[in-house]
């Protein structure tokens, strides 16, 4: 490409300058980032790393697993399933009919303390096969209404428990409507009354921010169909802790909810007498009802899963570490051994 030279030579230096400037401006600036030369660490899985990673995991996991298991074993738990036993034998053929009929449904249960239980002892009721997490159920509430006195009319999602005879229900919705209504009262060693503290069983943030201090139950359970417990219309919702706990919908169909706390220690072989009001209908859907008394550890209630899982993973990693050690001892592969390169392994592939 022979480009003709310009006859005027005077312009040459100027143009050379400008082209130099242009050159500089067009030239990409050097930076480690744009040239992809940023300092980097390039970890690779060397045998040593693999074995130490597995070892590290097992070293960390096995103690945690043991600690978790101990924590879980320390928890003393009394579980009493009462849904069948609390129905008189004569009514057991049609439990639903029994539970739906009016009348006294008091039932006495006797529990034996297997081990010393340190206070606080938490009292739970446990329901089985109860889908609190069903979409229709979960949605059937109005947070606005619960929080704010002036939003009583905000019952959009609460159908069919939204209104009764033209006036709004507070708290509306299926969750509140189906509030658990079995009652428990405890006495220890057949005489001494055992107080159950029902305060402080809900989350503080719920009491203070989600359930209004000036919101009182209105028209609750006044319709034809009664779901569960009734509420005292003179107590604001923020103090109705049983409701607040109930309104925290459980994630799984088997769940426990806090009923109260026993704030005294129980000794081994103490007998606890529970006077139980069996009102709640779980019989329609074959749900079990259980009463649970449990202490807690730093990890919570009695649950061996974490400990076992930690021990399993830790053990597996230990095994893997051993296995890889043996592999590397038996069949050592030198790092960066060129014979593993594809062109050396199968020379015919070219």
């Amino acid at each position, binding site marked *: *490409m022979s480009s003709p030279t310009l006859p005027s030579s005077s312009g040459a230096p100027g143009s050379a300058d400008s082209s130099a400037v242009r050159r500089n401006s067009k030239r990409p600036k050097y930076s480690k980032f744009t040239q992809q030369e940023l300092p980097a*660490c390039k970890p690779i899985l060397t045998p040593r790393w693999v074995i130490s990673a597995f070892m590290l995991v097992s070293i960390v996991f096995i103690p945690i697993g043991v600690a978790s298991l101990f924590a879980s074993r320390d928890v003393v738990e009394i579980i009493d399933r009462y849904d069948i036993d609390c129905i008189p034998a004569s009514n057991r053929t049609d439990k639903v009919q029994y539970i739906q009929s009016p009348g006294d449904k008091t039932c006495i249960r006797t529990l034996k303390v297997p081990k010393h239980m340190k206070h606080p002892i938490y009292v739970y009721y*446990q329901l089985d096969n109860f889908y609190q997490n069903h979409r229709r159920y979960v949605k059937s509430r109005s947070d606005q209404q619960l*929080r704010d006195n002036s939003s009583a009319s905000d019952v959009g999602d609460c159908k069919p428990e939204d209104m009764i005879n033209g006036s709004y229900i507070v708290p509306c919705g299926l969750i509140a409507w189906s509030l658990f209504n079995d009652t428990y009262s405890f006495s220890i060693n057949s005489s001494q009354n055992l107080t159950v503290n029902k305060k402080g069983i809900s989350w503080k943030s719920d009491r203070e921010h989600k359930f209004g201090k000036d919101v009182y139950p209105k028209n609750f359970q006044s319709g034809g169909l009664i779901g569960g417990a009734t509420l005292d219309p003179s107590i604001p919702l923020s103090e109705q802790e049983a409701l607040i706990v109930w309104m925290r919908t459980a994630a799984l169909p088997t769940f426990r909810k806090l009923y109260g706390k026993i704030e005294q220690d129980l000794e081994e072989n103490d007998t606890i007498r529970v006077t139980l009001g069996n009102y709640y209908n779980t019989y329609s859907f074959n749900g079990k009802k259980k009463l649970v008394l449990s202490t807690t550890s730093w990890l919570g209630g009695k*649950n061996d899963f974490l400990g076992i899982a930690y021990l399993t993973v830790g053990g597996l990693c230990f095994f893997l570490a051993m296995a890889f050690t043996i592999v590397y001892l038996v069949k050592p592969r030198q790092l960066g051994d060129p014979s593993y390169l594809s062109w050396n392994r199968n020379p015919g592939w070219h």
Partner: protein
Amino acid sequence: MREPSGRTKRKIRWSKLYTFSCFRPPNTDPVPIENRIGRPGFSRVVFCNNPHLHRMKPHKYPTNYVSTTKYNVVTFLPRSLFEQFRRVANLYFLLAAVLSLTSLAPFTPPSLIVPLVFVVGISMLKEAVEDWHRFLQDLEVNSRVVKTHIGDGVFVEKAWQQVSVGDIVKVQKDQYFPGDLLLLSSSYEDGVCYVETMNLDGETNLKAKRCVEATLGLNEDATMNRFEASIYCEDPNPNLYSFMGNLEFENESHPLSTAQVLLRDSKLRNTEYIYGVVIFTGPDTKTVRNSMKSPSKRSRIERKMDRVIYVLFSMLILISLVTSMASAVLVSSQMTSWWYLRLQDKDLFFSPSKPVLSAIMQFIRALVLYGYLIPISLYVSIEVVKVLQAVLINNDIQMFDEATCQSVRARTSNLNEELGQVSIILSDKTGTLTCNQMEFRKCSIAGVSYGGDLNEVDLAASRRMNSDMVAYRSSVDESDAMSQGIEICEFPEDDIGNQMGYVGAPEYLESLNLKNQKISDVHRESSIKGFNFQDDRLMDGQWTRYSNVYHMTMFFKVMALCHTGIPIEDDRADKLKFEAESPEEVAFLIAAQEFGIQFCKRTQSVMVLKELDRDSGSVLEREYKLLNLLEFSSSRKRMSVIVSTQDGQIILLCKGADSIIFERLADDGKSYEEATSSHLLCYAEDGFRALAFAYRTIERAEYEHWDSVFTKAKTTVGPERDELLESASEMIEKDLILLGAAAIEDKLQKGVPECIDKLAQAGLKIWLLTGDKKETAINIGFACSLLRQDMAQFHLSSVKDSGCGNQSEAILAAKKALVSQIESFSQGIQVENKKHMPFALVVDGQALEIALRSDVKDQFLRLAVECSSVICCRVSPKQKALITRLVKEFTGKTTLAIGDGANDVGMIQEADIGVGISGMEGMQAVMASDFSLPQFRFLERLLIVHGHWCYKRISKMILYFIYKNIVFGLTLFYYEFYTSFSGQVLYDDWYMTAFNVLLTSLPVISLGVLEQDVPSDVCHQFPALYQQGQRGICFSWKRIISWIINGAIASLIIFLSTIHALSSAAFSEKGNVADIAHLGTITYTCVIWTVNCQIALVISHFTWIQHLFIWGSILLWYIFLLAYGALPPSYSNTGFHVLTEAIGRAPSFWIITLLVVVASLLPYFVYMALQRTFYPMDDHVIQEMKHCKKDVFDKQMWLREQRNSKRTTQVGFSARVDAKTHHLKEAMQQSGASIYRSFTNSPIYKTLRSSPLFQ
């Protein structure tokens, strides 16, 4: 071309590819133009010098504004939205967003709409920015200025876009034509002008255009004042090679043809100025009509990704079906007894009496619910990543060309990873491999070759022989083990001395000599353009001392007289510059000038030479009367001039292809034939274009007789004219006396042979497609080592049809001949294959036409794919495109087309990746390309480094993306088993929104932009790594399925662990039990940890950016949770104080996180450890070598592996050196004597002599 102008561009495009002009009847039109004017297709009227007449109907034509943008202000929104929602995934999310406005969806509207708007918005923004750049480019073209007549003979500069039909424009030398013009007159008296049409057809020789005689006088500004005429011509059409019209001027009608039409985008050369009338503007011009819309290309990976998305969609539908079925069964059976739900028939989702309806509703809801399986942000993340990758490619300093101030540009960013999968490169020649610059390199005069006889291959081979020798010597001596491992097949470097330092004194001296020679080479290159010749025997007038000075003089006279060039004054007093039709002639003229015979003047009939006089030693000016000029043509392959000297002698000087000249030698003119032809062979192997020179003296009587015959032939009108001329020239071009031959190097661009070598080692095949002559193409094939002497060359050419009238018969015959050729070659390959003989296929355009017909093409392509290199010459742009398409379809491999001119546009658009060379002036190829390079040599880095990286990055990124969405999406599904398939969502809506947009997007982008499996220098050193991309192993279905399974396992581990760890028992010391919010948050935390740690396992190259993004993302989740929890409960819903009050305080939360993360990553980690241990991939091993610094400590191994990794290749420089070394060794083993004979001049000879072997 009689295509109605109304046809769509698309049709034209197909017709361009499938019809071959050569088989069309010649354009002998029985209907005279006059009868066609005004008919359909010929209705255009142009009023010259009256542009205002074209401002209203019926002669209103489009303006000269040319637009290449995709959108304008109005159409941007609808069109780009349409483009966005053509993607199935986006459409799905749009539907989901619409559904979210109804009660159908399980989420709140913002959680679906926000990500969609975000994703689509970013894509549209990218489109807008890209289109804006196109607009700016248009603006640059449209605002170029041209001098336009505004009346009274006054010309002012107007922007191109303001030029309208009928305007008279004055175009200056080296300017482009603003539209299609009718040439009125030029600075030459005879109204000729020269046009360079490289942008249109890639041809580099200048074309002469000539105005009609009537307008010849209009060659000054002032004369334009009163000029008025009208043009009646054809309607706008895309045919570049035809034009029909009439010029009505001064009441006379003058027929117009292509000779008068100057097309837009061609350039005025060698002519000071021209005047022209604008006939076609803007979209009507032939170039614009010819240009096709660049097809939007998608990479292989992206197309496969679409299929992966379909797989995910089927997964989605499957689990949605499971959900809806199960839900319906439960609704109609058990759920009625769940009194607390108060099921009513009004609730369509849970209507006990209409289970089918509720199943359908549940199905729709589930489709939306599990939408997280479909990675909504995948497309946008890929787009962002690719733009960033393109920025990095654009900013690579190592791909910046100092000479042209250009760097590599990724013009479309969506093919970055395709660069890593290329298998076949289809390359143009002129301007791509060569710089379109001819250099005089060597000559053979009177049987002696001048200009040195070593080439680079010999040098490299001899160097390797030297070092082999050293290795041998040291193994004998056992003294120096070091030298054994010295790399020996590197390219010759400037610093030979250093490399050779250990060789020992004689070799070292020898190499010093070479070094000096090299340096002087470089020095000379810069001094004279077009002349790269060094031989003291000829320079500085030394040749006048030789005995055969007469032949020498004649040789130089052929160079100085037998041409069509003209001298131009230069600022240097004694040296002239030249312009000629072909650059070869310029090179010859410059060489002649350097040798002392300067062509200094040409008039119509006289050529003047300044000759160095042998006797006096002074410079004499001699006149030669030009009697006849027998022009060069591709069929004649020779050119002659007949001149008479001052003393009345008539001589014919002839240059041409050796075979043609040798045929025509006189019996006494063959004295140098043997020597010359052996030299010619050497020149050809070096890739030089050689022309043989000959002369004869003619008796005056003979000349006069011949002249009358010739003149008669010239004046004959009619079809037999050509034949007569041919036989006339045969009469005189005989009994020639051979002078010698001259070798011209079509100069390769810098670094081309090295680049081709590297690409070949990486397993790429290179096809050369050129419009040039077969000889030139083969020359270049040799020059860039695509061909070598010991290769079996198959020449596929069509037999000249014997002129039988019936066309279809001729085609049939040609086809038959071709098929038999192909068959015999294929058999040849099968026979020769056993001998490891490399093959090359050379096809010419005519043969290609037949070969690419549907019934032969498979056979042809099968043959072509077998060959190591394929060279197609004389191919038209359409054929280039067609070959590209067929190769792409036949082999199913990724093709890359590279070219610089408008003739390559078709091929560039057709190939999977189109690369344009931007250093040249034309922009068409660049505009049509996906990547533009300033120089061919950058292709190596672009493919082997950036292509490889981008391929790995994008593959890893997509696989990870699929994984992460499956991990997240399936946890939602598993939860449904515990909610009686009611469609309850485990997570808070805002968590879900944040997942793709906020919490996992940045790490994956850093993976896509910054990941490097090996550093760039290792990519260069181990070309074999590139083959991972060619074989597509990083994004194979095996890997995709494995990652899907990995995702499913991880999500299962996460979900089961969390629900069992958070069983009904209390999870904190305070005795609280977990509800949906707690379970959701904890599970979500585990998901975030898992996917972010997983990417840390995937990444093998951590800069601070990756660390920041990965660990930052995890941290961000906690920050998000804090911030979200701090919002008033009406906004934060279940997230209120969830971290601070509930789970954050419980040690079990943290313990669960640790357990789940480790457990869910364990399967992948074990797999990776096993793979690395037992089946490491190449990049793993190389990483390890680098890690152990083996490349430093065990240099010998490092270099050996580099060599081994190179694919054994038959083409490329190294292959040639290998072959040569092999050849030399054989020769050495046979006998010493033969070496003496064949390599007396080479350093090998001297080395051998001083080596212990010979002592």
